[in-house]
């Protein structure tokens, strides 16, 4: 039903140039896309918003290429993935791009802020590809096939990244007392 809803909104945008329909798509998917970038950038809210905006603008200009072979969400995440990798390639430093550092800690000593920092601390232990696969599966609920479609990585590679990523995360969580 949700997929039909997305397809009907896409159709309205393409056929009737209905920008309000695209606005609905943005509102519906903005949280997932921005959250993905927050996880990939280890909590850089400003950068995440910029990348997310670029993603939706690219999606708007390329909407005609959406063939509904996959869900709109998967298609959108693929664009987001490419936007992120274009950004990392253009901002690549001589040191390892996987060694992204956490942005400055946000103020406030609330429990939720501490938990958010822990998520990014945990994700910061992973390589970029591992972080991507883990985020897509455990945060966005994507299947292996979806992750393969989004990243272009073979299914075996995705599974390897997930396995190693989960091992590292489990180690981190145990070290920090999350082993319940």
């Amino acid at each position: 039903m949700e997929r039909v809803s997305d397809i009907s909104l896409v159709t309205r945008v393409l056929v009737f140039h209905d920008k309000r329909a695209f606005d609905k798509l943005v509102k519906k998917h903005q949280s997932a896309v921005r959250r993905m970038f927050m996880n990939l950038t280890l909590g850089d809210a400003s950068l995440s918003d910029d990348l997310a905006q670029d993603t939706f603008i690219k999606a708007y200009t390329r909407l005609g290429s959406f063939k509904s072979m996959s869900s709109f969400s998967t298609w959108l995440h693929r664009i987001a993935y490419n936007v992120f990798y274009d950004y990392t390639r253009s901002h690549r430093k001589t040191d390892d791009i996987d060694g992204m550092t956490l942005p400055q800690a946000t103020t406030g000593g609330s429990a939720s802020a501490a938990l958010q920092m822990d998520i990014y601390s945990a994700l910061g232990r992973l390589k970029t590809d591992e972080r991507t696969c883990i985020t897509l599966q455990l945060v966005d609920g994507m299947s292996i096939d979806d992750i393969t479609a989004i990243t272009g990585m073979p299914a075996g590679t995705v599974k390897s990244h997930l396995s190693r990523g989960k091992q590292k995360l489990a180690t981190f969580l145990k070290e920090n007392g999350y082993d319940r």
Partner: protein
Amino acid sequence: MTDNRDDILVKKFFEENIKEIEDNGFSRRVMHRLPGRASRTNRIWTLLCAMAGIAVFVIFRGWEYLTACFYDVTADISTTEVQQISPVTLGITLVVLTVLAINSYVLSEE
């Protein structure tokens, strides 16, 4: 067994910490940046120029000049020896023009 426990631990950790992100004007910023503002501007500008052109045409009685040009052209044609153009030549010309037009259309579609 340990792997399963680790998987469960990690999965539970993320399930407890997934948060929806409030829009807070994000979609408005996206809509504001969408392309199409420029093309709308272009359309408006084209419309204004077209209206200006029509206004100039009407003010300076452009149809009188067009009529005069038409009569000049037809007068020139009638004075040439049109009889020398055979139907075959005319037919070949039409076929060539048609092929060129189709080819041009196909190329533009590609």
